[in-house]
């Protein structure tokens, strides 16, 4: 299942690449992408796992760029 989340205050492109990398490596994630220009996070994962993946993704995002948040 593919889910798209909006992000806010994503200001460093290098960080976006790091987030994409880290989220893609989470267990259960088939693919993930962080689009710096449109500030969108796309996660492709099994439906029952998506909530827990999102939680982990939030942590990753705030670790890499403290000001940046995932909206939903």
């Amino acid at each position, binding site marked *: 299942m593919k889910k798209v989340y909006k992000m806010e205050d994503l200001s460093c492109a290098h960080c976006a690449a790091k987030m994409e990398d880290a989220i893609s490596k989470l267990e259960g994630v088939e693919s993930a*992408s962080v*689009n710096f220009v449109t500030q969108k996070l796309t996660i492709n994962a099994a439906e029952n796992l998506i909530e827990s993946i999102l939680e982990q993704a939030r942590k990753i995002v705030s670790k890499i760029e403290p000001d940046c948040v995932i909206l939903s």
Partner: protein
Amino acid sequence: MTKKQKKQLYKILAAAALYVLGILLPADEMILIAVYLVSYLIAGGDVLLRAAGNIRRGQVFDENFLMTIATIGALALGEYREGIAVMLFYQVGELFQSVAVSKSRKSIADLMDIRPDHANIMREEQWIEVDPEEVQVGEIILIKPGERVPLDGVITEGNSTLDTSALTGESVPREALPGNEIFSGCINLNGTLLMQVSKEFEQSTVARILDLVENASSKKANMESFITRFARYYTPAVVIVAACLAVLPPLVIAGAQFSDWVYRALTFLVISCPCALVISIPLSFFGGLGGSSRQGVLVKGGNYLEALAAAEIVVFDKTGTLTKGSFDVAEIVPAAMPADQLLELAALGESYSTHPISQSLRRAYGKEPDLTRIGQVQEIPGYGIEAEIDGSTVYIGNHKLMEEKAGVRLPEGPVGTLVHVAKQGAYAGYILIEDQIKEDAAAAIAGLKACGIKKTVMLTGDNDVIGKKVAAQLGIGQVFTQLLPADKVDKLELLMAEKSPKGKLVFVGDGINDAPVLARADVGVAMGALGSDAAIEAADVVIMNDEPSKLAAAIAVARKTIGIAKQNTVFALGVKGLVLILGAMGMASMWAAVFADVGVSVLAILNAMRALSIAKEKTLIKPVAADALI
């Protein structure tokens, strides 16, 4: 500017004021240091905090950390003014960068602002506005003048003109009449329309286009992946070199000042963020994708943009791509009567037939046939028609009909689809029916040649004579005729072997029955995709309307985008490299280093935005009228 950016600006101004005060004030050194420290904290407090926070979270080596080390290092060396100035300059650069990024985000968002926000629907005897996603297939919606068509459907009432430029890049409005199919994303210009919805919002044209454009950036160009890989190694490498630079030379070189080499190492740290590249390259590609979609050419990813820019051979399918795929009267050659009389005779005789050729004859005649002049009509399958017109027997059909039934001998004629006419046992002449070349087909080929495409090829299932004629008229270099669909793939393989290692082969088709060829080519381009889901699925690049000349425009956009991305790479790496070398030799101050970091980022972002503005430039290639019919 956002609130956050404004706050940042005030902080910079306050810190700068204190800094200037410190320089001008003839005060005691201790007081000066206090003033400088306050200025430094105002300017860089947030950087310090973020650096500290990141270290706690185990994220070292980000730019906050590097700037903290560099500026605190400068302060520790007693270079107060430089430490503050560098932090100030860095913050100004960051602010510029942040403004530039939000600006570019906004222009890209505007570009893709084709999402309809509401649909007017009748609920409880009243027209109300609802989200397009709530509308069901089969419901009737109202579209007022000035509104965006929210869903795909068929007009049931009213007439108007539609601005399709957001979808096709075409500026000429399209007429919309009852019974016409219209597509979401167009703008209704002047009349009120009632439309029956034929697809759910998720399946509609506008939703598909948005999905395609937004996902395009996930297929990364080689250049983008290179930059991402590069960034992963660049920062650690520079930091390691900086560490060596601070420690080794003072130990090895006799008389080397420790503080001098630490300063050089600090300048290194300032340059170690790869941000200029990491921001500007994807931004250039995004701009290019947005720019081409504004022209009605959807490119499915940065990698295809890269391939288009390297196009060397362009292969066209004939029918439906270079020609209109519909029959029309091309030439009237009378033998014994005026041309208009010959056409009238043929049109009258074919009045009752539904064959495409009969329809083209009636279309060319242009008047309602006077059925009272027609007597008995007999259709002879495989031959043509025998009809009684104005009391005389007329034969209209192919050469077999002429020779076997009408009993006339034919003069030598051209090859093609000919409709012969004989009246009262005498040959009256023939009418040539052909598929017509699109108005801009010749311009399309000329445009490709002008932008340096080495070879243009046409593939067709048609016979040799017609195929060669079309190719000659359009100036196409090579033509393969009488091909079965499977043969097309073979010919493509042959051509693929001809290109240079870095060159790419582009195939342009109508996307309906050439899926294998589209898939085999480096870049598969489907034409006339507006309303054709199959074509949008099959191709890598989609031309929304029927104009083959858009291909040259798309190649121009692709080349410009790649050019901008290359400029940015060379510029950013060049400046950084130069400052690194100068810094190591002790010839570059920290000022230069900050410029190499944020200054270069800002310039690269501004340059990247040019990729987006390509869309606004007029396409150089204008369609020319086809001077001759085939």
